[in-house]
């Protein structure tokens, strides 16, 4: 395996984050390698979202955050997608304009069209983005992220508010991105989703990374009692 494949895209070393009086992350060491699909799971308030925001550089903490060489292009899809009060097309063109250092201006229209085609929203290009349904908004957010061809895509519970069919559409898109070689880090409450999609599962509890295992190992017998309790609390049957 080449050096580029083994070197992490991004590494956190002993990172702690204090948000007001709350310690959101405590001495977290975490790395992401190219091609991985990492599912970050944990209870509400465990620090999943903060971990993603630290990875993306939206939040600073103590400790070290090191980017790979060259620095990976990142994009993030938030729990609730935010769109400007513009059409779908103009929102996408604006995102590509903001990424103009990586996306040449001449390429932007074609890139935008391709992104909408990929997520099945071409017919909605002239609609106000904010009147899209929940599932359509998440698909648009994925299109907007994919359009800049990120090396690393971060997703904060992208299917939390979606019905089963919309959830399935989003998961299909994510599997497609992963198959194309994109690296994904996704926080989720949905253990079945983590099991279906991820190559690696990270369990976060009270701001600490308690378990970090390949998916098959994570959902098998686990050495961490808290993780076992969490899994048992989420599912009605014993996974062992």
């Amino acid at each position: 395996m080449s050096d580029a494949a083994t070197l992490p895209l991004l590494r956190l070393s002993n990172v702690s984050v204090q948000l007001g009086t709350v310690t959101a992350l405590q001495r977290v060491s975490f790395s992401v390698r190219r091609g991985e699909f990492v599912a970050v799971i944990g209870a509400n308030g465990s620090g999943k979202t903060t971990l993603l925001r630290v990875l993306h550089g939206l939040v600073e903490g103590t400790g070290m955050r090191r980017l790979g060489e060259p620095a990976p292009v990142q994009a993030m899809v938030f729990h609730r997608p935010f769109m400007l009060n513009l059409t779908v097309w103009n929102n996408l063109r604006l995102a590509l304009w903001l990424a103009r250092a990586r996306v040449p201006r001449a390429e932007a229209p074609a890139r935008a069209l391709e992104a909408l085609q990929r997520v099945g929203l071409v017919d909605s290009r002239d609609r106000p983005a904010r009147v899209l349904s929940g599932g359509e908004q998440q698909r648009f957010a994925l299109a907007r992220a994919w359009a800049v061809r990120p090396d690393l895509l971060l997703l904060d519970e992208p299917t939390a508010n979606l019905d089963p069919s919309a959830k399935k559409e989003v998961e299909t898109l994510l599997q497609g991105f992963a198959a194309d070689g994109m690296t994904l880090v996704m926080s989720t409450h949905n253990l079945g989703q983590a099991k279906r999609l991820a190559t690696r599962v990270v369990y976060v509890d009270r701001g600490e990374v308690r378990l970090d295992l390949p998916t098959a190992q994570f959902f098998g017998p686990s050495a961490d009692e808290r993780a076992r309790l969490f899994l048992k609390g989420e599912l009605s049957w014993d996974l062992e």
Partner: protein
Amino acid sequence: MSIWTCGRAALADAWLDVLAAASGEGALCTPRHIVSSIAPIENGAHGSHRVNEFAQSAKSALDLIVHADAVLVRIVALSLAVSGTACLFAAGFGLVGGAWLAVARFPGLRVALLLLNTLLALPSVVVGLAVYLLLSRSGPLGSWGILFTPTAMVIAQTILVLPVVAALSRQVVADGLRDGGDPLQSLGAGPLLAALLMLVHERWAVVTILLTAFGRAIAEVGAVMIVGGNIEGVTRVMTTAIALETSKGDLPLALALGLVLLAVVALLNVAIAIVQRSRFASVGLQTR
């Protein structure tokens, strides 16, 4: 004079004193002046005479409007031009300044915001006085020679409405960035660009802010009276003309201008309501 008439006149006087004190306009004509120019109704004969006089004035006022009297049109046009120009300048500086304040981080920011919010209630006569002192011959900008010109009036009204635009736009941007700040930063927008994009996002709110500022500008009298001088054909606007004509007892023009001013304010309110409906429609919400 009956006890009822005396009492009614005394109540009216007291009410007018409260109004004059609360208005803070310090115009040459207080409401008391306006009413005192019309003698209190003492008995039936005088009463009907005054009513006929008022009716005649109202009719003359409507004639002035319907026939687009040249003096009336000139005064209205100057009012719209002065206040419109002032709002344009206030929009340029105030929107960008408000957006910047929403994302700025520097020592003393809280004090700056407190000062800005205090300036929302800046009395127009105080603004007029300050600009007068700046532009008078003995002032630091006396060499400009623009006192008692529409330019001075534009400067005064810009200063008056700038805090309105800045403070309200700052709030709109700050509120919007609570949801949109991180996503915009994630897309690559720096803090100021994100704030400016938020103004685009909340453009209906921005339009409402600008209409509100225009309403404040066109209805004020203190600042333009002091720095403009109410010179006929040069710096006479609706509010100063109403004050002057009423003090002279020349009601038709005052009434006509008053009706036009009311119509302008009413149109502004209608425009704001239409903008609000458009804003809700753009996000698929039903208005009541």
